[in-house]
């Protein structure tokens, strides 16, 4: 029984996220362990495996099945479906990097496979594990400030992810631009905090046939809550998450590029004059993501970010892309009109 023994992980894909995010967790954590690393570039796999005690390091997937309970799928986006499905069909629990897949059809098929083979499927919507995200979730769920009325999320930075292969800028492989990248995280939080149906989406971006680097959407939920989301790879936007409730406001203070890694969150009750400041202690969201999935696998529980959550985000992104219009950015199109804010 998995409940009684060490959970064994394999990682497929040795890009930057594996090197920067996952491997340090396995070096730190002793309650589960990494046993296999796979990458089509075997030398890359070997270089990441240096110093680790593993059963298998190579480019083939089949040999890892006997050594693992859980597979982390961290390959380029367009391969998520293919590889995750293969692992699910082999009876392995899968934690898939975001996005779960690049179409909702693929996501649905993954959900079916997980059900058919009675295994867990989670998606690395890691923002849910940030303390700030959990605090906001608690405030929304408890209704201590009343219902959510509107929101304004802005997140942007000059892109500097140390992409190893550059697939993220290949339309066919990435499936989308900044919306399919940072946008997945932002939309997941929105849908997690405010789990209502979306009635309408107004969407625009700056793609000229390639991948958008700036995207802006206006969302109206079925309960009337509405707001806007802006994401960018080209500049540091305000990097602010602002949620306006009936009786107060929650605002994440922008200290660093990623607003949810911020160390402070302000909660203002309209009935009180002072803001309440919540300070955040050191946190390890990726480790929490892995621990949560281990727990779901071990005790047959739901992971905090499940395959269903991955599907919901992709459905919204598909709606955005199908409603897409080119934003009237004067500096891009050489027009005097630059009325886009």
């Amino acid at each position, binding site marked *: 029984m998995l409940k009684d023994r060490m959970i064994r992980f394999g990682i497929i894909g040795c890009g930057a996220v594996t090197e920067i995010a996952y491997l340090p967790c396995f070096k730190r954590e002793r309650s589960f362990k990494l046993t296999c690393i796979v990458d089509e570039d075997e030398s890359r796999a070997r270089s990441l495996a240096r110093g680790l005690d593993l059963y298998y390091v190579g480019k083939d997937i089949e040999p890892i099945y006997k050594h693992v309970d859980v597979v982390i799928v961290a390959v380029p986006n367009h391969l998520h479906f293919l590889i995750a499905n293969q692992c699910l069909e082999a009876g392995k629990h899968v934690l898939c990097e975001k996005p779960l897949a690049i179409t909702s059809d693929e996501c649905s098929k993954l959900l079916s496979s997980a059900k058919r083979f009675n295994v867990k499927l989670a998606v690395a919507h890691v923002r849910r594990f940030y303390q700030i995200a959990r605090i906001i979730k608690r405030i929304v769920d408890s209704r201590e400030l009343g219902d959510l009325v509107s929101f304004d999320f802005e997140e942007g930075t000059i892109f500097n992810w140390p992409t190893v292969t*550059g697939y993220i800028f290949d339309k066919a492989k990435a499936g989308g631009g900044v919306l399919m990248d940072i946008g997945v995280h932002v939309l997941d939080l929105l849908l997690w905090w405010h789990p209502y149906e979306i009635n309408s989406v107004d969407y625009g971006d700056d793609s000229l046939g390639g991948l958008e680097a700036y995207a802006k959407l206006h969302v109206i939920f079925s309960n009337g809550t509405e707001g806007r989301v802006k994401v960018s790879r080209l500049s540091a936007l305000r990097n602010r998450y602002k949620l306006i409730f009936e009786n107060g406001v929650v605002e994440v203070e922008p200290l660093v590029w990623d607003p949810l890694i911020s160390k402070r969150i302000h909660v203002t009750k309209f009935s009180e004059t002072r803001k309440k400041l919540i300070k955040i202690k050191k946190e390890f969201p990726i480790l929490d993501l892995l621990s949560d999935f281990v727990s779901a696998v071990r005790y047959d529980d739901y992971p905090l970010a499940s395959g269903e959550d991955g599907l919901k985000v992709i459905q919204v992104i598909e709606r955005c892309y199908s409603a897409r219009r080119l934003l009237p950015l004067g500096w891009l199109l050489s027009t005097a009109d630059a009325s886009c804010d």
Partner: protein
Amino acid sequence: MSTEKAFITGATGFIGGRIAEKLWIDHGINSRCLVRNFSNAARLARLPVKMVLGDVLDRTSIEKGMEGCDTVLHCTYGNTNDSNLNTRINEEGTTNICEIALKKRIKKLIYISSVAVYGSNPPPVVTEETPTAFSDDKYGNSKIRSEKICFDFLAKGLPIVIIRPTIVFGPFSPIWTVGAIKRVLVKGWQNVKGMNGLCNAVYIDDLVDGIFLSINIDEAIGQIFVISGEKPVTWNQYFSEYAQLTESPLPQEISETRRKAKAVLSTWLRTNLSFLRRFFEPQLQRTHSYLKQQKPSLADKIENLISGGIKNNEVRLFSQRTSYSIDKSKQILGYSPGSFQAGMKITIDWLRHHRYF
């Protein structure tokens, strides 16, 4: 447009990036771009361009990138921290580009040089006929040598045009727009008595239009063109445009002695700070964040002290009364730049949109 497919080096940069954009937006021409580091490619990736991983020192990647192209726009220059590598990128890289372009019978190669080739003491009026001059500016010296390489290949039959842009501003300009707004935000620009130099500013789209004209006109081959705005503004006017956007209006006029004193103090502070940063980087960042949040005026004063305004090595540039003539570009290319204000208006929209202020 007399090109069907262009090969661009430096396309993840400011000028090369805009060339790729305008080729596609204005002319529907899809380019092939040499990309050294995908981490810088977010802007370029908005276009349906073909990105070829490599650099100007890697001949295989150049061969691959230039395949099927009729025009080369060579915008790369070395801007690393390693001056020897920069020299190799500028000179060996230009040689590689020219050799392969010659072999592939490219119809036209446009080399983006700089008015830095005129050295540190240019005459009051500079034209394409003004002699180049080596100086203490490594960038300018390297551009002179790169131009020489281009002329050697022109003699071998490679159709080359050399473009010498002046101060290029506009969206994504790292020094003269992003750098300028950051500078005024920390009060790094000073109105120094007697320092009334001219800024030969050119809006990026005007420069790119000039470059495209040079592609279209056969007479341009073998020629040098200075590309600047219609007429210069003063540096004070230039920085005022940015300062007006911020809560940091231009300071009162100060004397040269006071500027020097501040420059000395800031140099001393920066030197010590860089030493402290080696050991206390997180603590210093936390303190900075705290001051910005809790004591913004104190934080501004400290930033101002550290930035120190105009540095001694900048005085020459900001004092020069040189005008760069664009008569030849107008006459041969039909170059016709828009007004400084028109370019600045779009630049300001871009800065606002990108939350630089």
